[in-house]
C-alpha cells in the first residue's frame, strides 16, 4: 500500500524502465567510479561505533562529498 504522496509521473516512468532491464544491465548503469579525496586514500579503516565513523567523516572529508550530517 502506498504510504506517501502520489509517485511523480517522471519517476514512475524511470522505475518502470528500470524494471524492464536485467539486473546485470542495471549494475552497468548504476555503479560509477570517481576518486573521493581522503576517503579513497587508505586501504582499510574501521570504527568502533557509527558515531565515531560519522564524526570522522565530518572532521576529515570535504563538505561537498555530502557525508556530513544535516
Amino acid at each position, binding site marked *: *500500500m*502506498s*504510504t*506517501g504522496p502520489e*509517485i*511523480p509521473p517522471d*519517476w*514512475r516512468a*524511470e*522505475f518502470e*524502465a*528500470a*524494471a524492464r532491464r536485467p*539486473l*546485470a544491465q*542495471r*549494475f*552497468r*548503469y*548504476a*555503479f*560509477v*567510479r*570517481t576518486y*573521493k579525496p581522503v*576517503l*579513497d586514500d*587508505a*586501504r*582499510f*579503516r*574501521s*570504527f*568502533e*561505533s*557509527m558515531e*565515531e*565513523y*560519522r564524526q570522522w567523516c565530518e572532521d576529515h572529508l570535504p*563538505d561537498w*562529498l*555530502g*557525508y*556530513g*550530517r*544535516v
Partner: protein
Amino acid sequence: MAAFEYRQAEEIRDAFARHGVRYLFIGKSGAIILGYPDTTQDAHIFPERTPSNGRALVAGLRELGFDLTDPEAVAIERGKDFVQLKNGPFDLDLVFAPDGIERFEDAWRRRVVVEGFPVCHPDDIIASKVAANRAKDRESLDRLRSFRDYWMQHHRA
C-alpha cells in the same frame, strides 16, 4: 579501481554462500539490486555480528582476494560497527550496526532475495538513510520513498 560490477556481486554472493556468511546488501547498492534507478560508487553490506559469522566473513573476503592483515581480520571478526575495505578487487563497506535498524534478525526476516542476492527491505534501507541524516542521503530520500511505494505495488507477496 574500476566501478563495481555485476560479476563481482555474483562473486560475493557465491563466496559468502560457500562460507555460510549471513549478510544483506544495504544502502543505495541494495536499492539498486531491488530495481531503484540511480547511481552510486560503493557496495555496502550489513553482516550479522556473531563470532562464527565474523570468521566466515573473513574467510569469504580472503577468498575474494581481499588482502587482510591479521589485525584487520580481527576487527572484522569482532564486528566493529563500520569497516571500509579498499584492499581487494573492489571497494566494500561492512556496516555491522547500520543507523535506524535495531537488530540484524529483524532485517533478515524482512529481507528480499533477488537472483540470490539477499537485500534489505526498502523500508529498512530508507530507515537507515533517515537515521544517518547525511546531506547526500537527504537529497535522494523523496525519490527513494517513491520507489518504495512503486516497489510495494509490484511486489506484494
